[in-house]
């Protein structure tokens, strides 16, 4: 089980505390545009949460991450089932998805700028393109790992297709779905910043661009921390959901 945030391990506290102290120590020897003091970063970080406009920027990024992941997830589920149902579908879809997965996020940014006019469609496209293949493969793996024994057992009761999905397939793929969300959330957070750097008029990526133009390292770090905190909070929420949904598993088999 993941350690709750309020019960941080001693090693975690020491590692993060050590990094903070080292940064603060460096700030005594370097100019603030390279190593701003920790209190200055903390002040900027708190200011983001007290200013409604800054909060709206953070919210915009969060909304883009969720929208992109939701669309990619739905597409991924559909593709995974099409591939899972037929070996022929799999043989056609696998190389395409593998190819898509190999395209760098920056290339998708360029393609999106050329193909789409508005900012939001561009960002949505980039988010979906960079995460759909991973969702498909992870859900397909979960589907294929379904126990043949349990499938035969359920089939022996002659269920309808809907009942088979509800009683066997869905509970089988839920752990894979949750893992896919956790993994893709980290990827999406990295990609959304790149996407917002190009052409967006709001969001964390846009704010990072502003800080770069002002040479404000404290501001850049504060906005970066906002994104990291957001990802950590959502991952904790998914972990809690996982612990609740997978409560049937022995404790040792749950998320670590």
């Amino acid at each position, binding site marked *: 089980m993941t350690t709750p945030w309020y019960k941080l391990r001693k090693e975690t506290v020491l590692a993060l505390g050590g990094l903070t102290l080292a940064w603060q120590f460096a700030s005594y020897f370097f100019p603030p545009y390279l190593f701003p003091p920790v209190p200055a970063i903390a002040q900027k970080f708190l200011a983001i949460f007290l200013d409604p406009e800054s909060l709206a920027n953070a919210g915009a990024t969060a909304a883009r991450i969720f929208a992109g992941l939701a669309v990619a997830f739905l597409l991924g589920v559909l593709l995974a089932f099409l591939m899972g149902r037929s070996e022929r579908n799999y043989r056609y879809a696998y190389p395409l998805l593998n190819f898509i997965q190999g395209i760098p996020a920056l290339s998708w940014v360029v393609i999106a700028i050329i193909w789409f006019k508005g900012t939001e469609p561009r960002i949505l496209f980039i988010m979906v393109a960079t995460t759909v293949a991973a969702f498909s493969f992870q859900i397909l793996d979960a589907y294929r790992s379904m126990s043949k024994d*349990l499938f*035969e*057992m*359920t089939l*022996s*009761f002659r269920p309808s297709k809907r009942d088979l999905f509800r*009683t*066997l397939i869905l509970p089988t793929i839920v752990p894979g779905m949750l893992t896919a969300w956790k993994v893709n959330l980290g990827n999406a957070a990295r990609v959304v910043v790149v996407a917002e750097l190009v052409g967006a008029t709001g969001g964390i990526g846009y704010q990072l661009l502003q800080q770069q133009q002002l040479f404000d390292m404290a501001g850049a770090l504060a906005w970066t921390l906002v994104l990291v905190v957001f990802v950590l909070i959502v991952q904790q929420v998914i972990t809690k959901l996982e612990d609740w949904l997978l409560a*049937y598993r022995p404790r040792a088999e749950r998320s670590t």
Partner: protein
Amino acid sequence: MSELNAVVADAAIEFHSVVKRFLRHDRRDESFLAVDRLSFAVAPGEMIAVLGRTGCGKSTMFNLLAGLIEPTEGTVRVLGHDPFREFNWYRGKLAVVFQNDRLLPWRTALGNVELGIELLGKEEEERRAIALGWLERLGLKGHEHDYPHALSGGMRQRVSIARAFAVNPEILLCDEPFSALDELTGQRLREEYTQLVRENGKTSIFVTHSINEALQLGERILVFHRPARIALEARVAGGDREAIRQRVLEAMNPNEPRLAEEAA
């Protein structure tokens, strides 16, 4: 069909000259024979034990009965219908107890017993009452809300038996369900199973590789030889058990009479 089978009227289960061939995995153009012109019949309410060595086609016969595979030739009739082509007709009429318990790990003991009844579309209150009744009957009161990983092997197998009985099927198919259990637990469950089948008037086919188990659970024993065909058919009820055991041993070891003698 043999003489014993010829007298079965209005059979619950009928195999008529059933042949099953499988394609070889390594050489797709070649096939191997798993079941060879198998014919037998089972009367309603009869308990049959199918005995044979590993790989003799017992499981193939079992899957043909459950409608999970289609015969290459011949006909299989269960309650007068084709279990493969009329698969859904058997909803609630046929239940299977497998070699391993095959419990859904995300459901509690109660949830697992409710599975079959739930798939029959019964209301929650009704299915809960039925499932609780079967769990109590099989000595699992107090474990209703335990997940499978928290139950012992014997308890899990009891849950799987309760799951099969809960749908109140006319026919019960069992594929060596007690083979993985320790002797004492296995013996207790065999007794409970026999009692439940008799009390509820079920037709039962019990696949096993243990002669003792076959003698205990079968009113009639069918000994299979590879590829699945009947080498011996013996009526246990009212017969001399030791003589039947000797005949079964000889039928199972046709080329090794001394081995059979020693084992006897």
